[in-house]
Each structure stands twice: as C-alpha cells, then as structure tokens.
C-alpha cells in the first residue's frame, strides 16, 4: 500500500494525464454524469465499477469525445479536449479505446485492422505498420490469425486483436468499456491476462469492469459510480473488503452473491 501511494506522489509530480473537472452531461431529461471530478495520473490503472445504467460507459466515451459534455472540462496531458476537426482526431489517436462488442472492422483482415490507423492517421508507411502490427498481434497471442477476418475468430481472440489495434496507435491512455462482458467465461482470462501485462508495462488505463480479480491484481484505484455520480474511491483492497458507502455495500453484496 505504501509503495502505491509513494508511486502516486511521484507520478503526480510528473503530471496528471487525464483530468475531469465538474463534468455534467444530460441525455434529454436524464442527468447521466453529475459533477464528475476525476484525476488519473500517468501510469495509473483505475477500475470503474457500478450498477448498470450508472453512467460508466458514458464517462468513458466522454474522455475521447464520442459523447460531448454539457459543462465542466476534460484535459488530456494538460490539453483541453478539442471540440472537433483535426485536433480532435489527433487527440482520439492518443486515447485508445476497447469496446464491449470488439467492433473490429468486419470487412478487413486482422492485420489490416491493426495497420489501418497507423497508415491513415499516423502516416506510417505500410511495411513499418505491418511489422508493428505483427509484433503487437504476437504480444497479444493472435499472430497466427493475422490473415483471417474478424468473424472467423473467437470472441476472446477478437478482443485481443481490438487491444492490439488500439495499442498500434501508441496511445497515452487506454479506455476499456466492459471488455470481457460479451465473452464466454472460458475466454475472459485470456483477455484479462493481456490487460494485466499492459498494466505491468506501465500503461495508463481506465477500465470499466466487474472483474474483481483484475481490479485486485492490477488496479491502483477503484472508482465506484452510481446514478451518474462518483460515490466512492479507494484502493481495491479497501473497496472490496471495507466499502464505506451504503450504495457500494449494497452493490458488492449483489455481485458477490452469484
């Protein structure tokens, strides 16, 4: 525990990577994000947890502006999120995103999925991009599938390709929105292992997940959300063994009992 907090002070000194200040967002009458303040330091791994509908996905999606916000501010590496255009595209390239439903490009091979952004956004030449793509596919354990189409892969393999596709952009931070929720149970671990390795390598990660094993072994911090608010933040050990708020206690008793 002391190690973690020392490390945190260190990184705080080198700058916070993602900073949300009093962020508010509505969907019509629904106030999905209410005064969200959240700071993520470089190299930190934050798990976001909370009941369905509490706004976790929306929070993730505001960070690369797939959703706009109504008020407040979001900065990444000291720069406020651009509204649109080239600057926004450039920022998005720095923020990797992994979706629950993988969203691999269905008409492109695995290799093409991982080279597309490098060539079209990062302007790398094709050969260099392919080399990097193959290295990344190897790292996530799907190198043998490079020439196949996404539909020919298992869910676990597709999600690992999606992680490789995001990493290919050399992002500063990675967002994961329930990356294992759409997977058959036997495939969850192969994806979590890749994420764990990523965390060990020092990647800054924001992970929406209910996988407590992952939270305990890889996260520096757990953020608990309910009804559009951040209700509680703690280290994984504190949060899972000794939650402070009633909402968190109630939520944990539900997910622990099945």
């Amino acid at each position, binding site marked *: 525990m002391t190690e973690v907090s020392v490390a945190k002070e260190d990184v705080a000194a080198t700058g916070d990577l993602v900073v949300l200040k009093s962020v508010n967002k509505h969907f019509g009458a629904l106030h999905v994000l209410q005064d969200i303040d959240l700071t993520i330091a470089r190299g930190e791994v934050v798990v976001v947890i909370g009941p369905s509908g509490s706004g976790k996905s929306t929070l993730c999606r505001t960070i690369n502006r*797939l959703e706009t916000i109504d008020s407040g501010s979001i900065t990444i590496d000291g720069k406020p999120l651009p509204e649109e255009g080239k600057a926004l595209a450039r920022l*998005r390239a720095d*923020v990797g*995103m992994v979706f629950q*439903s993988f969203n691999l490009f*269905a*008409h492109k091979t695995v290799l093409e999925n991982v080279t597309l952004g490098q060539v079209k956004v990062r302007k790398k030449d094709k050969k260099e991009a392919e080399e990097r793509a193959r290295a990344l596919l190897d790292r996530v354990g799907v190198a043998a599938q490079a020439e196949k189409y996404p539909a020919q892969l298992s869910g676990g393999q597709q999600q690992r390709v999606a992680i490789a596709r995001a990493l290919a952009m050399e992002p500063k931070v990675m967002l994961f929105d329930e990356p294992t929720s759409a997977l058959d149970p036997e495939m969850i671990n192969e994806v979590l292992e890749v994420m764990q390795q990523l965390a060990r390598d020092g990647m800054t990660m924001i992970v929406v997940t209910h996988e407590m094993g992952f939270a305990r072994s890889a996260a520096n911090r757990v953020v608990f959300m309910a009804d559009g608010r951040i209700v509680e933040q703690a280290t994984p050990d504190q949060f899972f063994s000794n939650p402070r708020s009633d909402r968190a206690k109630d939520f944990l008793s539900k997910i622990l009992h099945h």
Partner: protein
Amino acid sequence: MFDFLEDYDLLGAFWTTVQLAVLSAVGSLIWGTLLAAMRVGPVPLMRGFGTAYVNIVRNIPLTVIILFTSLGLNQTLGVSLGADDFESINFRLAVLGLILYTSAFVCEALRSGINTVPVGQAEAARALGLNFNQVLGLVVLPQAFRSSVGPLANVLIALIKNTTVAAAIGVAEAALLMKEMIENEAQLLLISAVIAFGFVVLTLPTGLFLGWVGKKVAVKR
C-alpha cells in the same frame, strides 16, 4: 420470317442502349454515393440538399426529366455538353437525365446499406482518430456497398429498362428502333418479342451475376 430484321441495325441500337446504361450507371454510382455521403454527413446544409434532391427527383417521372434536359437545358439554355452534332448532344443529354434520376435511387439503396453497418464500426474508426471522410470512405461505405449489392442490382436493372425513355429525345436506342420497325412492318408481336428478348439478354445475366457477387462480398459478422 425474320428476314426483315436484316434491314435494321438491331445490334447497333442495342449497343447504344448498352452505352447509355453503362455510362449512366457509372455516373449515378458516383453522384448517388456523394448524395448518400451528404445525407449521412454532419453538415446541415448538405444533409438538407441531399434529402431535398432525393425526395424531389424520385417523384418526377423520368420522361419529364429527359424532356427537360432536351427542351430546357439544350434548346432554352443552350447547354450542349461539349458535343456539336445533334445525335451526340441528345445522347449526352439522355445520359445526364438518366444520371440525375437514377442517382436518387442509388443514394437510397446505399443509405439502406449504411443502416446495416453497426454504429460500433464507425465509433471504433472515430476512436482511432480517423476523420469523417476516412470513417465513411474506409469503414462505413465499403461495408455498405457490400450489403447493398442486391438493391443496387435492382436499380441497375431498372436503369437498363429506363434507357428506353431516351427515345423521347430521339436517341437511336432499342426502343426508338422498335417504334420505327413497328411503323414500317406488319409484325407487331414478332418485333416486340425480339426487343423484349434483347432486354432480357441484358438484364437477366446482370441480375444473376450481381446476385452472385452480392453473396461473395457479403460482410460476415
């Protein structure tokens, strides 16, 4: 029985039909794709234009459009599309009219194809940092084209048959020849059958071929 056919350039007329169809098909595919891009794009003015264009053009009879290109564009405004003899002016005007008309249907076929592409595909593309044109051109449209081959084939078959409207402004294609033959020969049924057969020869293989293509390029999810 078929002897009189030798007096007419049947193949030449159908060749004109094919040229009309091919040029109009290429033109409508391009203009229709641009219209579809406008209709799904973020710029309100373009969206409005795309929507208005499709809804107006779709509801005007093709004959009116073709006659307008000749009477309105050519004879009133002097547009000749770079040609100087009567024959090629009318041919080009007919192609223009067919493109203006058919592209509205291409646009709608493509838009239905775009709707089959899950939103997650575009979101993943945006999340990588691709701009709007890249998202559309590299991810959404390629998948939309693949799933609209069937609807586009129907548009193409309709276009092949619609080329007969060019007869209204004197383009020497199959239908105009048919009219001429019927006026000169007492062979109404035979002539109709020959022309109908000619169109079936053009449309049937087109439909079968594109049906096969559609299956082959279908995006598996």
